[in-house]
């Protein structure tokens, strides 16, 4: 019998199909197993960010924070917190995916990269859903709904998410030779809560301070989201290029670090 040789494109399509099927399986497992030990289960995904937003709302009310432009308090807080939480929760999810993926590597198609991608995708979906639900609640409860440029707001939100995914990917790459880097992620990222424009806008910052904080790409992502949401606000620090370059640089760093043999990395750095 003469073996039938399949064209390369056919093999490639089959390989892509297999990868997508495995990705779907990891996503389903990630959703099924998240917070399963708890009575609230998957609802924790939304309870935790809601409590953070509620806390900041109360803090704004208590300190009498005057908003820098014409909008309501909840809309302003959401414009800062939602992209920040997308970033932060994506970092957590991708880092957590490393341990989740380990026992699944007995399946030939499961790679760490695929597990990180699945965790990041679930987080993107959660973030978008949270975004939509909170905007709707704000409209239903207070009659406030401001979405001036949905595409720009979505771009800002997506960049914040992509920064989180690629930052975690690069950090896990470094962790292949220095585990301590993963354990110190929370400490390293904590200042971002204060320097990413969550409680204030870039336009409120003095020039010198803004020049320094502009190195934080998350500030751009938050400001893009805010500019996209509010008609009465246009940020002077809301560019797409800089955070996008950071995303690509982090991705490239992660790819290099994950492909290099651990011994070689250690020798290079020694």
């Amino acid at each position, binding site marked *: 019998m003469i073996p039938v040789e399949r064209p390369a494109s056919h093999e490639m399509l089959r390989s892509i199909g297999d990868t997508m*099927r*495995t990705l779907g*399986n990891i996503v*389903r*497992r990630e959703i*099924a*197993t998240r917070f*399963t*030990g708890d009575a609230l289960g998957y609802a924790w995904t939304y309870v935790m960010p809601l409590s953070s937003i509620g806390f900041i709302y109360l803090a704004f009310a208590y300190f009498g924070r005057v908003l820098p432009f014409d909008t309501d308090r909840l809309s302003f807080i959401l414009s800062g917190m939602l992209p920040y939480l997308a970033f932060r929760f994506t970092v957590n999810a991708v880092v957590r995916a490393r341990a989740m993926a*380990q*026992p*699944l*590597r*007995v*399946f*030939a*198609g*499961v790679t760490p990269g695929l597990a990180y991608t699945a965790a990041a995708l679930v987080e993107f979906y959660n973030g978008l859903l949270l975004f939509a639900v909170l905007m709707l609640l704000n409209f239903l409860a207070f009659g406030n709904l401001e979405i001036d440029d949905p595409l720009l707001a979505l771009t800002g939100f997506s960049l914040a998410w992509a920064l989180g995914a690629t930052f975690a990917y690069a950090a896990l790459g470094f962790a292949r030779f220095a585990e301590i880097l993963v354990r110190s992620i929370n400490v390293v990222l904590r200042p971002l809560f204060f320097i990413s424009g969550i409680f204030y806008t870039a336009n409120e910052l003095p020039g010198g301070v803004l020049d320094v904080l502009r190195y934080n790409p998350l500030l751009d992502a938050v400001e893009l989201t805010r500019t996209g949401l509010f008609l009465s606000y246009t940020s002077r620090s809301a560019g797409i290029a800089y955070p996008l370059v950071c995303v690509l640089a982090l991705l490239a760093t992660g790819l290099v670090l994950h492909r290099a*043999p*651990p*011994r070689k990395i250690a020798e290079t750095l020694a």
Partner: protein
Amino acid sequence: MIGFLDVSKSYAAGGQTRCIINKFSQLFDPYDRVGILAAPGSGKSILLGMLCGLETPSSGSIVRQGLVWPIGHCGPLHPGMTGEANVRSVAAFLGLDADEIAIYCQLFSELGDDFHMPLRFYSGSMRARLGFALSMALPVTTFVSDEMVSTGDAGFRSKCDAALQQRLTHAGLILFTRNPQTAQRLCSRHGLLQDGRIEMCATAQGAATRFAGQTSEFSAIVDLMAGLETI
């Protein structure tokens, strides 16, 4: 083929680097039934982990063909999911009929309605029975095992033995064990793990004799250390 190609594996422990194997190559036919006698602490779990993809070699390549599965493996079973959801998830990853796998596992493991409970409520024995049932349900090309070839009470053990013997008529086995009788009963090729290398022997008896010499040296060192501690 299944095995190691120029594989080295080392890991850092307590500020020191421990080398498990160094530039080691050994290939087997995927349907071979190979018993490898290995002393505790000789690195058999890491070798087994590399063979089934759970561990990555520091350098070199692991050759795998078909589905390689550790007997009784519970690793992919998540404590938050029910027994049924877990085996269905495994079936989905392998592109198998989930209904067929789930029915087989429920019947073989004798879990009854507990099959529909989250794994965190399972006892160790229940988990082990489910893990074993799952490994018998999958179309495995080569089984690998670190000692485990059956589980449960006497009745369940004989059921496990029968199922494994039946599966081994069309699947291979790489068994790391310190029990020469188990290796002789299940395997047709024999070797021992020594100094980070698998050395094949012509007969089961030959492997057992060499292994006995190796373990008696080990026991002598343990006795010596115990003596030093009492001084």
